[in-house]
């Protein structure tokens, strides 16, 4: 749904709040009045998921796995423990599984029933991940879905779609781009996008990063 939020923002100054905004305000006021929520706790929750937990955790995991064979082995063996060793633990990351892309296999993650997503390594999911079109189509026509992200796979590549129906949370380990053999972990982090860790895109190419940084 294309939506210009800058327009909404401009209108916020002149328009009355929407029914939805009023409903949320009423609920929050009621909960505060009854002492059922702590206002500082609400701010802590928002700050945690808006500023502290996000895809940069996953970027760290992936770039380390690309450069540190021992860490990668640990990650493939017990992702929850390996990710915890980097300090990332918590809700929606209690049972992590890493699925590795190779030249032959491409993995894609979805939750057809709601919006299950590995918060500890990717933060909160983007709108499209939670949308009806993605949730309905990822399991029935994944190559068409990938094409909408500009991703075209060779015909011989085996596509595996992981439907997150349990509390297992899936993180894709993207294929390390060619031409990065001598790159450090720090340099490689710039190539790891959130979308590559969901599986809708490959990791960024060295050229793409050089073009944007110059």
């Amino acid at each position: 749904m294309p939506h210009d939020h800058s327009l909404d923002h401009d209108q916020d100054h002149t328009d009355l709040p929407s029914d939805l905004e009023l409903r949320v305000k009423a609920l929050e006021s009621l909960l505060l009045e009854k002492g059922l929520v702590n206002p500082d706790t609400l701010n802590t929750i928002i700050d945690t998921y808006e500023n502290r937990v996000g895809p940069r955790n996953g970027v760290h995991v992936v770039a380390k796995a690309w450069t540190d064979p021992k860490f990668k082995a640990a990650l493939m063996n017990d992702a929850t423990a390996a990710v915890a060793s980097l300090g990332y633990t918590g809700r929606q990351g209690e049972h992590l599984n890493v699925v590795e892309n190779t030249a032959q296999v491409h993995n894609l993650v979805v939750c057809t029933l709601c919006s299950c997503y590995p918060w500890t390594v990717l933060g909160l999911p983007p709108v499209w991940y939670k949308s009806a079109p993605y949730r309905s189509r990822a399991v029935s026509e994944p190559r068409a879905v990938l094409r909408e992200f500009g991703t075209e796979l060779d015909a011989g590549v085996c596509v595996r779609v992981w439907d997150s129906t349990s509390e297992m949370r899936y993180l894709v380990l993207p294929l390390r781009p060619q031409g990065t053999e001598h790159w450090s972990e720090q340099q490689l982090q710039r190539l790891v996008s959130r979308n590559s860790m969901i599986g809708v895109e490959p990791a960024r190419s060295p050229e793409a990063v050089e073009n944007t940084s110059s």
Partner: protein
Amino acid sequence: MNGGHDLGGKQGLGPIDPEPETQEPVFHEEWERRVFALTLATGMLGHWNIDQSRHARERQHPADYLHHSYYENWLVGVEKLLTESGLLDKDAHSHGLRIPDPPAAGKIMSSGGPTAMDADKPPAFRVGDSVRLEKIHIQTHTRAPSYAQGSTGKVVTHHGCHVFPDRNAQGNHVGEHLYSVRFRAEELWGCDAEKFDVLIDLWEPYLQALDET
């Protein structure tokens, strides 16, 4: 229940139209932030579990579920949970509740809620076994997606014993063995489908053994 949320394979829902990754904010509106925080904060009071929370969002007319934005469905869910649980009937003091302060909430968020449990029986299936996902046409909460019901797949991983959502949504905290099961696209969608595999996490009570042929 197979309400508006049970979306796998549904058609006619349009293109994905993703917002570019580098431009998408975590929240698009202030009220979304508030709904998210209120849902997590009230969830920490322990009056419902994650499956009851999911079921509260699912229990809507499918047209409403699909028409609502994501956080609107969260709002519907948390309003329902607060009302049905009786939490709103009294204040925190009369409930005898300790409301998590920021450090306590931080601890809850960083420790999470693992669902692994000790098994009270051995697993019925082994990796490589052929299984059928049974028809599970129940009105209550389930995590057996309707698009794969009746289809046959192969067990690829045994994850041990985990809280069984169908019972947990009714307040019964029991564990069942959990498996990742691989389904071929042609089994799910017919011979004209693209070639790919779908892997679905399924609990033992959903699955039926098939004789090896």
